[in-house]
């Protein structure tokens, strides 16, 4: 077992789980806003009001007797994704990429029939995938076709971009690529690859798998350091607007880039994890403290994004831009 001293971690500015909970989530996130992000349908509708694109909503199935409607329209629906509104961790998400006669092709290549999808829908309604088993609704939305540039990097599934937004400022970002080890899921602790992204440009900084530095994708063999995200500023702007929409001071925005429709919001998270620091090779604390110490916060998403891009872009905190004095000590 290898260890690192807490003083070195503090010097690196690593945000700890306890501090995240006490100093950031408890202080900046209003409990009343949690339902907005814990329910993907509400997030979706809310995001639309704030000009943040989300995957097109095809259908909402609220009750058991809505399921026949799904059956009637299934033929015109084409490729789609079904997900529980209150799901988490990828549970209950079925991605249908195409048709094979009567049968539907799942993202993994397996074919399923209509009866399977109907049973899946009724399981979602019964709360099989929601937290605590409470009744849920099923969302049927457009399939996201990953832009080819990113697609070749991901082993399976759509890669998503996690942006930590603090008081409306995008402070840190990473790209999550599914790998063979993670079984097509973009979950870091299951072996997905986390690529830290430069807030200034959207290009790769550093990459980890299972917390260890990697330079190439273990499945595709492609180098990870040449990655760069298109439409970077738009992406940050959307993430920043989510703050205006939800009022959550400390959150994670999960974004995807669709081949035709560009950047979109997939979901919001009121308790974003700490692994993003490992992917970036940098701690969050200096950036969070910097924002906390701002005398006059910027009012619009554009101002905040431009400030963050200039401020947190690599090289981090150049000596030309001295840090403002922190208002309070930890």
């Amino acid at each position, binding site marked *: *077992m*290898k*260890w*690192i*001293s*807490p003083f*070195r*971690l503090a*010097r*690196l500015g*690593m945000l*700890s*789980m*306890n*501090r995240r909970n*006490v*100093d950031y989530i408890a*202080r900046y996130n209003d409990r009343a806003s949690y339902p907005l992000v814990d329910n993907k349908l509400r997030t979706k509708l809310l995001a639309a009001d704030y000009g943040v694109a989300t995957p097109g909503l095809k259908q909402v199935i609220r009750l058991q007797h809505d399921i026949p409607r799904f059956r009637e329209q299934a033929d015109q629906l084409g490729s789609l994704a079904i997900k529980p509104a209150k799901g988490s*961790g990828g*549970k209950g998400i079925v991605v249908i990429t195409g048709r094979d006669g009567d049968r539907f092709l799942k993202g993994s290549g397996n074919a399923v029939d209509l009866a399977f999808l109907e049973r899946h829908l009724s*399981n979602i309604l*019964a*709360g*099989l995938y929601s937290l605590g*088993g409470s009744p849920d609704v099923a969302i049927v939305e457009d399939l996201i076709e990953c832009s080819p540039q990113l697609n070749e990097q991901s082993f399976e599934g759509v890669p998503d971009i996690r942006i930590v937004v603090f008081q409306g400022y995008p402070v840190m970002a990473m790209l999550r690529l599914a790998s063979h080890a993670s079984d097509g899921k973009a979950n870091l602790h*299951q072996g997905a690859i986390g690529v830290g992204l430069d807030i200034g440009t959207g290009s790769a900084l550093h990459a*980890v798998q299972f*917390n*260890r*530095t990697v330079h190439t994708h273990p499945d595709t063999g492609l180098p990870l350091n040449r990655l760069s995200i298109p439409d970077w500023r738009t992406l940050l702007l959307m993430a920043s607007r989510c703050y205006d929409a939800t009022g959550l001071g400390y959150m994670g925005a999960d974004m995807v880039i669709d081949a035709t429709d560009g950047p979109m919001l997939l979901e919001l998270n009121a308790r974003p994890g700490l692994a993003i*620091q*490992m992917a970036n*090779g*940098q*701690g969050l604390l200096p950036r969070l403290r910097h924002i*906390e110490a701002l005398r006059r916060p910027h009012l619009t998403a554009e101002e905040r994004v431009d400030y963050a891009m200039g401020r947190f872009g690599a090289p981090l905190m150049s000596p030309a831009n001295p840090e403002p004095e922190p*208002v*309070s000590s*930890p």
Partner: protein
Amino acid sequence: MRSRRPFYAGVFILLITGILLSALRHYELDIPWLPGDQQTTWLVEARIDFEAVGDPVRASLNLPEQPPGFRVLSEQAASPGYGFSVVRKQGLRRGEWSIRQATGPQTLYFKAQFTRDPEQGTPVSQPPPAPEPVFWEEPQATAVDQVLSVARQRSSTPESLTRELIKLIRSSDPDQNASLLLTENDTHDLLPELLRHAGIPARTVGGLVLENARRLQPLKPFLEIHNGERWLTFNPRTGDQGVPDNVLLWRRDATSLLDVMGGEASEVNFSMMRQTIPALSLARSEATQEGLGFLSLYQLPVEEQGMFRTLLLLPLGALVVAFMRIIIGVRTSGTFMPVLIAVAFLQTSLLPGLVTFIAVVTVGLLLRGYLSSLNLLLVSRIATLIILVIFISAGISIVGYQMGFNPGMTVTFFPMVILAWTIERMSILWEEEGAREVVVQGAGSLIVAVLAYLVMQAPLVGHLTFNFPELHLVVLAAILLLGRYTGYKLSELHRFEPMSEHEP
């Protein structure tokens, strides 16, 4: 940023209050800090139940007086609305409760505290007038004569005669005469009558077998004879002479234990509890109802005291969980599940508890694997699991019992619903994160549970939490402080170790 000063001030006040109060009680009431310098005392509670019929009620209970081998420390009657007094009737101590009028079920309590004192023997007493020969009908009269003459032949003193008689009557294969007498008489009446017939003063007395935390105990009959100098006690079941160390003679004469006027269906039974507190200070704290004595949990009925003992340990368990999760970073399945498991361990003791817990959860996980293929809804899945857990527990108990392990029985101490939830969580974890995570979290939960158990079973902890309940304010302060700890967990020092390569 909100000021943290009020928070820390609050914590400080809690800390100081807790420590000051317990220090005060320590000095004022002489309750010692350590469990070491303590004496074992027995708190015995007689509970009288009867149905009042709407008339004036008078209940009278025989009270112990100088029971051999014990010293009485304190006595106390609790009975709402009743007047109580200790009276002496024909030289006998009785507690009398009275009320003008009462209807419905009534409960009266009499509590007494004893400490063992081997010095305390049976006092010399005037022999009662020599008993008249008992009148027996034929053919019993002949049988009595025969039995007595057999016993007399083998004995020389009243004591040995008594022993021989008990042997004859209690023999696994009694002779014809003894059998005849036994079919006509109750054994406990027969022995004293035989002895009285032989001219030896004899009586049946009632003794209480002292075992910790027993409830609803009856008095057990013992035989006493007077040898001309003092009363001698015999166990009528074994013939052993003397009062066993763990028997408290409650009723020393032949009069009734309980008389109730104005009530029906009356009964009395006893609960008892072993306590470790110095007799002196206890007597004082019982006496000082005013002052800090009112904080004492010893004033509660014995049954409730037992409950509070466990209850007051829970905060310590919670503290252990908070520490392990916040400072160490151990992952457990279910936040406070480990505390509940630890409480079960308190009843079962560690090793049997661990074995049964692991057995139930493992079997449950295997069965749950099948359940998940049925696609049940959560509520019915858990309900099914609860039933399965009960079946598994019953199975383990039976198998354990057949193999001669008493621990098999201990499985009932585990909260079944918690077990079912644990199995459910573990199984979902297995499906979603793999077996590794199940082992990590399962082991984490068990480690925390064992630690919590070790803390809660420590005699010092049990002593402090029960005798100084105000110390829980200190525990509360510690938990509040932990809740504001923003430093790294021990586990993070390992998790974030790869960051060392990024150090400038």
